């Protein structure tokens, strides 16, 4: 294919990326900035998948190894755990304005400069080969498509040109701004776009190749043969049997790498503007990994069948479309490869250049800066240092490619890098969860881990390329057999990655823990340890907490900040902060400690925490702040918040109480009205007998000559009306007892039939006088209830019936049945019946004397109201069925066995 066309495609693709990166900040989708969409963020996490994934997985699969899957299994398994870890990391880094992995480690262990430098150097050593891999992928895919030979003499000019294009590109992308936590939202959109491109291309190529391969196979073959061919492909190709140890270690370090690789840290933490984003990436990322691996095996098989054995297996994906004469697909694959490689190079380089400037160069300069003019020169050169970092990083990658990685396969270099960044796991994870971890532990762990890494993975590859003597592999370092790089301490039979991971992490973890336990922390370290481990406890009060005890003046502080963000910006930042925290912002005033802390944090975001601390120290006459003091301040702020919360809670409680009181008041008013009604009713009930008594008393008094018979009749009436009053008073008191809940039941076991019979016997005289009939259907039910109260109810019901049935023809019948545990006792009569309008009223102790002009049937009084209370207290009820003129039927129901 014409290399000019390829070059145009390459440049055009980069320009498209550029366009997206610069314009995306203005784009919106459904009213939201697309750069702040969770999906865009989640897709950008897939920067994990580089050219190594895009081409290298196939290379690995083509050699019959399934180990490449472990690289994706690790991050997938790690995702839920990583979610918790990242949440904490993001919180810590946002609060402390930490912008790189080196700065994170340095900051956690007392803002230690040497630790930050060591981490930076280690990252460089570990990552540069990985970067060179991307250059290699772009360059070689270009060569394959352009028809160039792999065997060239001297400099790989293609790779060199690509390197410079990428340097320019990354500088434009990443080093434009210095401030505010290093976010590049346009970059995020571009990376997300690249993630879509590489996935789309891989799936498209996978579908087409699988289809074509299947078709050409099916001619003359049946599908069983294809499947068995597939199986034999693996049998034939597989060099070693499945090894759990290898899988475990590869998965573990891949999991670590998915968090600790500088580019992953950049996307997960630095570019992440909201912890909420993590809830999306936690499932999108593993899903993406699954999708991009789906077609790896079918394509590898197709490559095996149609390309023969002696091709460069890493580029199967590129060679197959050419084989099928589909050049357009090959170009697509080429673009997919570029997208995978460029996104990795850009993000990784930005991350590394931040470390390079903030953890290596600027701390070095800052240590010498003792005046504002020197700091000012640092401020002016920050951007330059960063650009130089980009240049230095990519150029190093090119040189490594040119001189070392020329002949190695893509996948091995990637894993070697993974093991190197895994060396930060003890200090980062330990630092987040273990307060006693200290800088000596971290330093010694990282250094020894790296030494072991270098010895077990780099030394053998150098020896294989004849840069070192092969003796070291065969006989061990200094001819000591237990120092063989491939079988350290005699550990044999493991894959090199598993072997190296095991030893380096074992030494690393061991040193970190043992040294941390043996040595002491400085005060600054203790404070940071406390903040990191308990970040969720302190994050609320962090900003307003005073961390400084020294004296500084506002103009000095402002000038310091202005060196890095310019005068206008510095003014704005300081004004906004003082307004937010109501701090004095007078030109001659001493700076509030909170403001000094704020400036230090802001500077941390630009130059790293260690340098920032050094620079702030030049304007502050500082005394060391002990951890007790710091904790005191934090706890004070915390207790203020607690107090505030307490007050809020109290207010809510008071409001609740208030509405409760209002409710109660309303109820009381209602009760009061009911009480009024009751009083009216009772007084009305009392008036009637009193009226009779008075009338007859006056008649008796005014008519002394009355006949003796009448006289006796009238005095008799007076007596009975007096009894009626007495009875009414007793009922009122009785009812009040039920109302107030003071009435208790005295439960006994008795036969209800016996009670009915004894009640009837008590009324025998009345019944005989009126010449009526009472029929009781015989029954026998042992009930547990209050015998006296049930008797009272029965007397009331039966005597009412006796009162209302007609003379001579009166019929009363009593029946009892048991329905699902409930006694149903019915007293019916053939009296005149009760008008339906009274059916409700009749059990009510009030009959609304106020507005009522229709009278309740006489004699019911309060008796039925009391009966209802008794039955309710028994867990039962009383009801009435009656048709006017056809008699009434009262039913009481209650549980046969009421256990209290």
């Amino acid at each position: 294919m014409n290399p000019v066309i390829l070059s145009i495609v390459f440049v055009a693709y980069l320009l498209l990326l550029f366009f997206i990166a610069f314009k995306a900040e203005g784009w919106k989708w459904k009213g939201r900035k697309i750069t702040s969409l969770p999906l865009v963020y989640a897709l950008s996490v897939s920067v994990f998948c580089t050219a190594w994934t895009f081409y290298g997985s196939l290379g690995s699969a083509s050699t019959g190894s399934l180990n490449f899957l472990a690289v994706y299994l690790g991050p997938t398994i790690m995702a839920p755990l990583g979610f918790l870890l990242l949440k904490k990391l993001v919180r810590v880094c946002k609060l402390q304005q930490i912008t790189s992995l080196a700065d994170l480690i340095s900051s956690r262990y007392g803002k230690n400069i040497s630790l930050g430098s060591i981490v930076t150097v280690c990252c460089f050593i570990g990552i540069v080969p990985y970067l060179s891999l991307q250059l290699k992928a772009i360059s070689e895919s270009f060569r394959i498509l352009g028809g160039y030979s792999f065997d060239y003499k001297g400099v790989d000019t293609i790779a060199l040109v690509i390197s410079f294009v990428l340097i320019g590109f990354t500088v434009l992308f990443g080093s434009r701004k210095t401030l505010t936590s290093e976010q590049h939202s346009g970059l995020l959109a571009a990376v997300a776009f690249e993630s879509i491109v590489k996935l789309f291309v891989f799936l498209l190529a996978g579908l087409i190749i699988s289809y074509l391969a299947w078709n050409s196979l099916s001619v003359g073959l049946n599908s069983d043969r294809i499947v068995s061919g597939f199986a034999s492909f693996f049998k034939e190709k597989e060099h070693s049997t499945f090894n759990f140890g290898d899988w475990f270690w590869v998965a573990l370090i891949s999991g670590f790498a998915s968090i600790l690789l500088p580019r992953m840290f950049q996307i997960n933490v630095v570019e992440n503007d909201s912890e909420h984003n993590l809830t999306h990436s936690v499932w999108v990322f593993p899903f993406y990994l699954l999708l991009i691996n789906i077609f790896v095996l079918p394509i590898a098989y197709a490559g095996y069948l149609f390309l023969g054995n002696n091709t460069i297996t890493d580029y199967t994906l590129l060679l197959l479309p050419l084989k099928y004469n589909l050049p357009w697909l090959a170009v697509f694959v080429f673009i997919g490869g570029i997208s995978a490689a460029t996104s990795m190079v850009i993000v990784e380089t930005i991350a590394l250049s931040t470390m390079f400037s903030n953890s290596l160069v600027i701390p070095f300069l800052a240590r010498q800066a003792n005046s504002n003019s020197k700091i000012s020169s640092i401020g002016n050169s920050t951007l330059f240092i960063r650009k130089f970092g980009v240049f230095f990083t990519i150029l190093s990658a090119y040189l490594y490619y040119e001189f070392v990685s020329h002949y190695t396969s893509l996948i091995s270099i990637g894993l070697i890098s993974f093991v190197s960044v895994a060396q930060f796991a003890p200090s980062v994870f330990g630092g987040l969860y273990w307060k006693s971890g200290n800088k000596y532990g971290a330093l010694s762990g990282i250094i020894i881990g790296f030494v072991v890494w270098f010895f077990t993975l780099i030394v053998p590859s150098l020896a294989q390329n004849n840069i070192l003597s092969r003796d070291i592999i065969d006989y061990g370092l200094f001819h000591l057999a237990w120092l063989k790089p491939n079988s350290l301490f005699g550990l044999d039979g493991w894959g090199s990655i598993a072997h190296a991971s095991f030893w380096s992490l074992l030494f690393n973890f061991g040193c970190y823990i043992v040294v941390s336990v043996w040595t002491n922390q400085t005060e600054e370290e203790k404070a940071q340890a406390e903040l990191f481990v308990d970040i969720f406890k302190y994050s609320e009060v962090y900003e307003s907490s005073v961390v400084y005890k020294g004296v500084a003046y506002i103009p000095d502080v402002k000038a310091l900040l202005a060196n890095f963000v310019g005068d206008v910006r510095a003014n704005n930042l300081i004004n906004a902060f003082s307004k937010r925290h109501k701090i004095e912002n007078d030109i001659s005033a001493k700076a509030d400690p909170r403001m000094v802390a704020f400036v230090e944090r802001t500077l941390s975001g630009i130059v790293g925490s260690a340098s920032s601390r050094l620079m702030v120290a030049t304007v502050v006459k500082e005394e060391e702040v002990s951890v007790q003091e710091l904790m005191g301040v934090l706890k004070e702020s915390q207790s203020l918040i607690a107090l505030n919360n307490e007050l809020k809670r109290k207010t809510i409680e008071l409001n609740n109480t208030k509405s409760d009181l209002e409710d109660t008041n309303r109820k009381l008013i209602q009760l009061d009205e009911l009480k009024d009604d009751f009083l009216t009713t009772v007084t009305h009930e009392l008036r009637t007998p009193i009226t009779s008594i008075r009338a007859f008393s006056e008649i008796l008094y005014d008519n002394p000559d009355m006949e003796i018979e009448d006289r006796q009749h009238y005095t008799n009436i007076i007596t009975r009306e007096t009894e009626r009053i007495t009875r009414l008073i007793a009922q009122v008191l009785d009812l009040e007892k039920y109302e107030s809940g003071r009435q208790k039941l005295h439960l006994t076991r008795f036969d209800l039939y016996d009670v009915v019979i004894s009640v009837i016997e008590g009324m025998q005289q009345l019944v005989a006088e009126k010449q009526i009939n009472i029929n009781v259907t015989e029954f026998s039910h042992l009930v547990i209830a209050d015998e006296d109260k049930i008797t009272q109810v029965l007397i009331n019901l039966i005597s009412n019936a006796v009162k209302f049935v007609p003379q001579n023809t009166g019929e009363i019948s009593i029946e009892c049945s048991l329905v699902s545990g409930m006694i149903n006792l019915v007293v019916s009569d053939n009296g005149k019946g009760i008008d339906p309008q009274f059916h409700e009223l009749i059990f009510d102790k009030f009959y609304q004397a106020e507005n009522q002009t229709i009278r309740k049937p006489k004699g019911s009084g309060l008796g039925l109201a009391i009966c209802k209370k008794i039955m309710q207290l028994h867990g039962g009820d009383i009801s009435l069925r009656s048709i006017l003129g056809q008699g009434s039927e009262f039913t009481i129901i209650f549980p046969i066995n009421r256990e209290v």
Partner: protein
Amino acid sequence: MYKILIADDEPNILLSLEFLMRKSGYNVFIARNGSEAMEIINRDKPQLVVLDIMMPDIDGYQICTHIKSSKELSDCKVVFLSAKAKEGDIKKGLEIGADAYLTKPFSTRVLMQKISELLK
């Protein structure tokens, strides 16, 4: 001889009033509820009715309104005799045309005095 109707659902009140009226020489009619009272009023056209307000079927107010709106009964006097003793009840009774309103318990002497005044 004046015809007087006593309407009340309380037998003892009826008994005592009947005794008093007869003794004073009136022709006494008795009603134990509202509908009986209506019947007697329309049939016998008494000169005076002693009315209870709260009765099981038709209340005293309705009966009074009936009397006061009927031309035939234009000279029939109405005396309420009720346990409803609130100011509002009394006012209502007088507003619909009652000639007197006595509350229970009442003085038999005041009642008889009132009746003889009204029948003059």
